[in-house]
């Protein structure tokens, strides 16, 4: 989703130093020696790790190599170990003896030099010959054994892996341990685990999954070329050329989002030369029109409106940053604190308390008062190096997060990094944190600088442009020149870039808090920043490697906020999803026994609407922070079957159909009834922006949009303003009224998407004032959770059928649920 300008940036640049142990990665010069066989020359350390011999001895024995050389920074300097007398270099024969009476020692070989009688005569004490290799390990005082810390942080290699890699080196001396794990093309990838021996194993598991997802994403996006596109030309406020066009959406999950890069092409004709230009999507209009801001304004065929082609330009940036973060996590010991390193890998670590003076009150200026569970979460989090906050729908996790960040920033441990996977969530957080009075910088991807943002004044690019001090006037002059002319002379451009970079740095460094997306945390502009305190919101919607990007910048205290009972990250590649890429770090930490602090008071839903979700997803712990009166929609005359319960399940028996694309579903009867419900809401005084229609299927979404605009009983424009979207894209948001169209109505097939309890949870918890669910109880009741929902509605006399103006309780029979959901 994030594209950036980091072509020249090298990810995970912290690399294996040449002399790191080829088995485990230990790189302390005092602990390593080099195999001196010319075809080998690999370095190994003197730790035993998980084997009976030290790594260097293991290598020498397995490879049948016998000579070694010490490191230049070791006490003896770069020295090939050899017999002082005969020059024999076989380390299996060498040992130290002391010369005569002084404390001078030399290496002497056991055969033949040690058994030469003449030496004895020369007063050498041959009885105390001390072999170089003792107990399958080099003498510890010659080649040091890495500390326990170093060993724990190193790759945990097994004897089996050693044997395998030594076997591999016989044919391919440059092979790495990663080559052992490389799956064949058709193999299922190795699934994710709960615990990992070390960060290398972690990387070995996740790197192939990210690669799979990246390949799939590339394939999907690059196949999105559209010919014969009709363009409407415009000029933006920044004088850049903008192309508007409709980019027909197929029934797949691919959606254009602001920041995406597209190429526009025209093949040329008699009066126009062939032309092409790339640009960034800056917005998507309500009419599903795409606005593309072109990078170059020259030569645009503005008098041509038809026959253009649009291609997707795929960028590997976000995937590169994930891979880079994993590499940094493995090879850079300072990337995260030792505690967090072991904690993330699932090692048992003695619990640690962060010793900070706690504030007297846990709220923050500019924010609403915190409730008891929020105060408890803030207080607890401030004292722990790693913590999870679970925020069920509407429980104020943004306010809680902002309060935590406020107190962290006041502790004076340097800048706090605040991230979330989505730009929307980052903006919301940035706004709340800024309200506390802290200095906030919102770092946007370069490709999104033209995308409008509710917190524009906090963005780095805006602050750079508006830092109006005299020292900066040079930058302003150049900026103006660039804006007017479109480009600068190469020397001016150089000056401009340098000034801009310096200003960006100055502004970023003076901020208390930096906010960006998780992927944005890998931006080269943050490359030299270190953050000891990191908060990640919506962390349950990020993949683990994505979450790692903001963490490997030196984190010592990490707070993950999210809700593992709502939807997780979207993984397009089924293979990667099956292998567990869709499981978030938050979830794995929960499975490892980290207990999240749960926020318990919800301020969104009418109490009647929160009852079922609370009981089904949160063990009944969700309390209502709003009363029935506060959610009574005065003046709205809608035919709720039970007046104090603004909810009903509207029984639908219409058939589902496969959509035109063949990959999705639609249900015409449900769509027609959605229109009737929408119209009734509108007639009763509800305005379009208060209504959301959600459905799990793209086929149905497109059909409803189309149906309402053609058949809506009221003004067409009203229906166009109503948001119709998938469950997934509604996560994190709310509407006053929600209409949920379930679509599936086939007795013999499953209910697909609706099977995921987390999706049902999200769907049921978007509405503040009222909800209408349309579906087929006969089909849905087979699934235990839906059976529970239907029973709940039936018990409250909210399961109805018939025309809207004459709803009657339905007597439809449920089916027995297949198996108990747990």
């Amino acid at each position, binding site marked *: 989703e994030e594209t950036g300008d980091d072509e020249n940036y090298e990810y995970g640049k912290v690399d294996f130093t040449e002399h790191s142990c080829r088995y485990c990665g230990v790189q302390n010069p005092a602990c390593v020696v080099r195999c001196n066989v010319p075809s080998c020359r690999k370095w190994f350390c003197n730790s035993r790790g998980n084997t009976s011999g030290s790594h260097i001895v293991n290598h020498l024995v397995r490879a049948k190599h016998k000579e070694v050389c010490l490191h230049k920074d070791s006490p003896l300097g770069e020295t090939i170990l050899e017999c002082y007398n005969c*020059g024999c270099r076989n380390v299996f024969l060498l040992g130290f003896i002391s010369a005569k009476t002084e404390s001078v020692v030399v290496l002497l070989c056991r055969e033949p030099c040690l058994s030469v009688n003449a030496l004895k005569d020369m007063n050498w004490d041959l009885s105390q010959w001390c072999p170089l290799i003792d107990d399958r390990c080099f003498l510890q005082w010659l080649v040091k054994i890495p500390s326990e810390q170093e060993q724990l942080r190193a790759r945990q290699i097994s004897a089996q892996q050693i044997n395998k890699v030594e076997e591999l080196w016989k044919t391919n001396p440059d092979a790495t341990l990663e080559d052992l794990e490389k799956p064949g093309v058709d193999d299922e990838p190795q699934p994710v685990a709960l615990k990992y021996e070390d960060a290398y194993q972690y990387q070995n598991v996740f790197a192939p999954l990210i690669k799979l997802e990246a390949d799939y994403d590339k394939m999907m996006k690059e196949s999105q070329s559209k010919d014969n596109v009709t363009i409407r030309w415009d000029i933006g406020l920044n004088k850049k050329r903008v192309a508007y066009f409709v980019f027909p959406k197929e029934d797949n999950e691919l959606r254009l989002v602001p920041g995406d890069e597209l190429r526009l092409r025209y093949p040329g004709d008699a009066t126009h030369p062939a032309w092409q230009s790339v640009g960034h999507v800056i917005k998507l209009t309500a009419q599903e029109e795409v606005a593309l801001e072109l990078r170059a304004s020259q030569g645009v065929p503005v008098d041509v409106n038809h026959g253009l082609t649009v291609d997707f330009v795929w960028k590997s940036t976000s995937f590169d940053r994930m891979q880079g973060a994993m590499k940094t996590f493995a090879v850079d010991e300072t990337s995260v604190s030792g505690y967090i390193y072991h904690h993330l890998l699932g090692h048992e670590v003695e619990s640690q308390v962060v010793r900070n003076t706690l504030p007297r009150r846990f709220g923050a200026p500019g924010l609403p008062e915190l409730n008891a569970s929020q105060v408890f979460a803030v207080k607890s989090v401030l004292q722990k190096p790693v913590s999870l906050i679970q925020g069920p729908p509407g429980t104020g996790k943004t306010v809680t997060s902002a309060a935590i960040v406020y107190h962290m920033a006041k502790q004076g441990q340097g800048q706090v990094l605040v991230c979330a996977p989505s730009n929307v969530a980052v903006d919301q957080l940035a706004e709340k944190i800024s309200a506390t009075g802290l200095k906030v910088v919102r770092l946007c991807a370069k490709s999104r600088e033209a995308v409008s943002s509710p917190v524009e004044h906090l963005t780095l690019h805006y602050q750079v442009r508006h830092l109006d001090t005299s020292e900066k006037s040079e930058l302003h002059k150049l900026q103006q020149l660039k804006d007017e002319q479109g480009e600068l002379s190469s020397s001016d451009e150089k000056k401009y870039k340098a000034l801009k970079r310096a200003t960006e740095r100055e502004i970023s460094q003076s901020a208390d808090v930096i906010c960006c997306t998780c992927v944005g945390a890998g931006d080269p502009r943050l490359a030299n920043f270190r953050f000891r305190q990191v908060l990640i919101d919506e962390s349950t919607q990020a993949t683990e490697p994505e979450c790692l990007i903001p963490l490997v910048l030196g984190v010592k205290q990490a707070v993950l906020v999210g809700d593992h009972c709502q939807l997780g990250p979207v993984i397009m590649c089924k293979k990667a999803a099956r292998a567990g890429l869709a499981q978030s770090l938050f979830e794995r930490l929960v499975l490892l026994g980290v207990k999240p602090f749960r926020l318990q008071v919800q301020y969104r839903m009418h109490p009647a609407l929160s009852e079922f979700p609370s009981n089904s997803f949160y063990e009944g712990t969700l309390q209502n922070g709003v009363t029935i009166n506060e959610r009574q929609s005065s003046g709205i005359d809608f035919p709720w079957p039970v007046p104090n319960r603004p909810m009903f399940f509207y029984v639908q028996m219409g058939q589902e159909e496969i959509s035109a694309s063949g990959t999705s579903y639609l249900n015409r009867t449900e769509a027609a009834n959605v229109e009737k419900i929408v119209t009734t809401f509108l007639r009763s005084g509800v305005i379009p922006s208060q209504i959301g229609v959600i459905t799990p299927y793209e086929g149905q979404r497109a059909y409803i949009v189309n149906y309402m605009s053609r058949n809506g009983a009221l003004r067409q424009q009203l229906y166009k303003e109503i948001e119709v979207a998938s469950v997934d894209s509604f996560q994190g948001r709310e509407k006053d009224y929600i209409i949920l169209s379930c679509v599936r109505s086939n007795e013999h097939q499953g209910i697909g998407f609706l099977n995921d309890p987390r999706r049902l949870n999200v769907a049921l918890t978007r509405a503040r004032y009222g909800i209408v669910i349309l579906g087929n109880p006969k089909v849905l009741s087979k699934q235990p959770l839906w059976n529970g929902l239907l029973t709940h509605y039936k018990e409250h006399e909210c399961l109805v059928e018939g025309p809207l103006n004459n709803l009657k309780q339905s007597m439809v029979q449920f089916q027995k649920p297949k198996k108990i959901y747990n």
Partner: protein
Amino acid sequence: DDAIQVRQKVVEVDPLEEAEFDREFRALMQESLESRKLELRARPTLNMTIPMNVFEGSARDHHGRSMEGESGDEVVDEEGGVGNKKDVCVKVLVKRGNKQQTKQMLIPKDCSLVQSTKQKEAAELEE
């Protein structure tokens, strides 16, 4: 401030793997010994001269830091490192081509190498 307690897992070495490694290790050792016996037993030459300056005064270690005290003196690990144990400073004599070089190195006091030297020094003192 980053002292952490990771619960040490007990390293379990697979006995089969250990036995196999041991076998290979001994085979390599044996082979090394035998090959040398055949090659060199006949005419062992002696080339063990030690330059006199090795026995003189204080040498400089390779960091250019002057090592206080005579060789053989007990020195305390400057870093005050692990256990702060006392080591003994010895000179290691190596050959670079035909030239001899000495390097300073710390050896634990209880190592047999230095113990025997100390004993002999003591014995000689008594004579």
